[in-house]
């Protein structure tokens, strides 16, 4: 049977409007219809009807302030699903300075039109300057006002990366970066914010949260710091699942990166803050599981915690308040795991 006999022009339009090509659609219909013993035409019609009555791709606006664009690069790190499928099939990326074709006035026009239309997911990368608006301006407008304006009509707000979630490194600079939550509170805008911290945001955390919101139409459960509980939380500790954990308990600490014997020992003396990082990095790892900070002999700086960066510094010693706390907790037996 020929395509044209099965799919009317209208059906084709509906199917394609969801970014599905008709060849794939027909293959799927033929296989499924055969399985259920119904005609391919009936099945195709029913699916197309369902598609038509479902919503269109969710609009997303991404704003970047006091940031390094590392979180944007983290988004483009997604291979499964590929980022092209996220951007073209799953969301309608209305605004993203680093991605969009438009420039200049066209960007401003897109921003104004989207804010007016409302109903989008707002993603903010980077902190908001609180010392002076002039520390970050886009199209002549203060970044602060762009965030406030976009937040009002957003259906969900994601603060991605340490800077927008908690202020991160910009908090310690003269621009005095503040988080999205703080900026909205100052502007008296009462909206929930999902904090997807770490520096930069973890690709899985970002993509997973977007997919969760798109799939369920709801915000995910959050921990006490407003972070998705599926990735962060009081009971989730880098330290508990660290492959070097036994060496921490045994008091075997790496002092020389050249020494093969010490290669897998605990990095506490090099400044590791894993025992205070409530993130799932040691299980999930980074870059499709290839590696993560601690496994490359580098140290965890608890970059997903609000204390990052000020209170974890100095980074590569045990002299920070954070390291002193960790040691005190070790001595008190706080990290010991016993059956309740």
């Amino acid at each position: 049977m020929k395509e044209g006999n099965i799919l009317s022009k209208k059906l084709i339009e509906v199917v394609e409007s969801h970014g599905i090509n008709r060849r794939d659609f027909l293959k799927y219909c033929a296989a499924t219809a055969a399985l259920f013993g119904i005609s391919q035409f009936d099945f195709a019609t029913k699916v197309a009807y369902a598609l038509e009555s479902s919503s269109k791709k969710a609009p997303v606006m991404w704003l970047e302030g006091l940031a390094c664009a590392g979180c944007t690069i983290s988004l483009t790190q997604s291979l499964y699903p590929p980022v092209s499928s996220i951007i073209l099939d799953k969301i309608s990326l209305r605004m993203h300075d680093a991605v969009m074709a438009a420039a200049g006035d066209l960007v401003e026009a897109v921003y104004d039109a989207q804010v007016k239309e409302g109903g989008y997911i707002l993603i903010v990368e980077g902190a908001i300057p609180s010392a002076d608006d002039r520390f970050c301006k886009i199209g002549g407008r203060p970044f602060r006002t762009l965030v406030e304006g976009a937040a009002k009509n957003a259906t969900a707000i994601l603060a991605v990366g340490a800077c927008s979630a908690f202020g991160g490194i910009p908090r310690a600079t003269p621009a005095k970066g503040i988080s999205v939550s703080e900026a909205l509170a100052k502007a008296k805008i009462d909206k929930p914010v999902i904090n997807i911290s770490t520096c930069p945001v973890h690709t899985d955390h970002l993509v997973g949260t977007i997919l969760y919101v798109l799939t369920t139409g709801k915000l995910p459960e959050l921990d006490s710091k407003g972070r998705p509980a599926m990735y962060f939380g009081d009971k989730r500790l880098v330290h508990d699942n660290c492959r070097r954990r036994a060496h921490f308990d045994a008091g075997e600490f790496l002092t020389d990166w050249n020494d093969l014997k010490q290669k897998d020992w605990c990095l506490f003396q090099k400044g590791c803050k894993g025992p205070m990082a409530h993130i799932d990095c040691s299980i999930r790892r980074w870059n499709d599981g290839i590696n993560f900070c601690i496994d490359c002999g580098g140290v965890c700086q608890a970059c997903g915690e609000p204390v990052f960066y000020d209170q974890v510094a100095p980074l590569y010693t045990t002299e920070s308040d954070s390291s002193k706390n960790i040691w005190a907790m070790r001595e008190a037996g706080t990290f010991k795991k016993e059956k309740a």
Partner: protein
Amino acid sequence: MAQKITIDPITRIEGHLKIEVEIENGKVKNAWSSGTMARGFEALLIGKEPRDASYITSRFCGVCYSVHQLASSRALDAAFGANVPWGGNLIRNLVMGAEYIYDHVLHFYQLSALDYIDIMAVANYSGNDKELLAVKDKIVGLVKAKDTYPLTPRYEPDEFTVKDPDIVISAVKHYIEALKMHAKARNMGAIWGGRTPHYQNIVVGGVTSYPDINQVARFRTMLDEQAKFINKVYIPDVLAFGTGPLWPLATMGVGGGHYNYMSYGDFAKDASGKDLVFPAGVIVGLNPADIKIDAVDQDKITESVKHAWYKENKPVHPYNGEQIFKLDKKDAYSFVKAPRYDGKPMEVGPLARMIIAKNPDVIGLVQKGAKPGAVARHAARAIETRLVVDACYNWLDQLLTEMTKPGFKIHDTEHWNPPESGMGAGFSEPPRGALGHWIKVKDKKIENYQAVVPSTWNASPRDEQGVRGQYEESLIGAPVPDPKNPVNVVRIIRSFDPCLACAVHIIDPNTNEIRKFLIE
């Protein structure tokens, strides 16, 4: 009558950039480049433990991540007196090689290609290639759904835009493939870097990642896949565009600028450190028929703040710089300062490196009539990517030899702890060009920190003499027949691969007196 137009924001770059141009008779007559975001990282670093610098400065930029980690670690190496073992340098080079490959591929496809193709031409594709038909279905589907974000809105295609459906559809297919390839290149770097963006393994004295043979094999296998894409897709695409539909832009030399070029030189091919992948040099006023290259003398670097938001000061070397922030200053229009070499603005980056290296492929294009400019910049970037790939293979071979010798080292453990006092400079040639970090240590703390980064050179405003920065100069004469559609302006600016988060460093708005960066 000249007409002034403002493009703000310039998109598909890193950071926040505003470009203003004055147009007369369809051409750019004058131009101003402004960095519009600042955090003030250097001020943050004052008083901190010196080793924090490499971790913090990595966050200058998350696109060219870890290039500052490397330059900063080199400045610390010098200040601490650390000697990085060749094994440590090999791993530093390899993870930076992975960064290069990803960054250049991302720049051409994701950040630039949309300036040169009419993506909607894919609808006219009439061939039978199944993969290309799938691309056509995808784009046509978006159009039918009346939702073509983020591919539109856009500046309208002009006379130089490629509209041939066969070329465009293959470019769009490669755009999608490139997204996967540069994600994989970052995974390759993570084998030793730990994760991306922002590697975790580069520290003062070397690296933290003790390699094993499986990792070498894994890196090599992933490098094979990258090499194939670069040689079979990326370089052919750039050359096909550059010598085909964009040849008129190339021969017109659109986006030329001052024709001054500088490279600090970087990436030793072997432990002797004599033979570099990218040689050092300075060219003032390029004459393609007779290329004269001078040695770089770092004492000749100065920075002017005449047109930047800092208190008036005469141009001084970064070692002796004083920066006092002044947001309301008259005649200032950028957070970016104006570095000069021997008083002259310089272009840094792939084109500078390839001309200074007298790369035969790039020189060959010039001899055929391509003038150094926007198109040549893309070609130089693609050509040097291949040099980096070749170097990575060489470094992998050496690493395998080194790591199987007794006493193999990746780190100078003796010099891990900060000295009472010290000073040092760290230089590098990351993807966007010449990068320098300067540090002074006192009482085991950072007394002063200064970075002069590639985009500071390229994006700088005017200097004391009113001489334009390289972006600004490169825009002069660019054809802009329709002021509402200044597509050539963004083509030129994007050809430099701007990184504005890197370019801007400043200071304290409350006291108006930030810090003195005084390094004798």
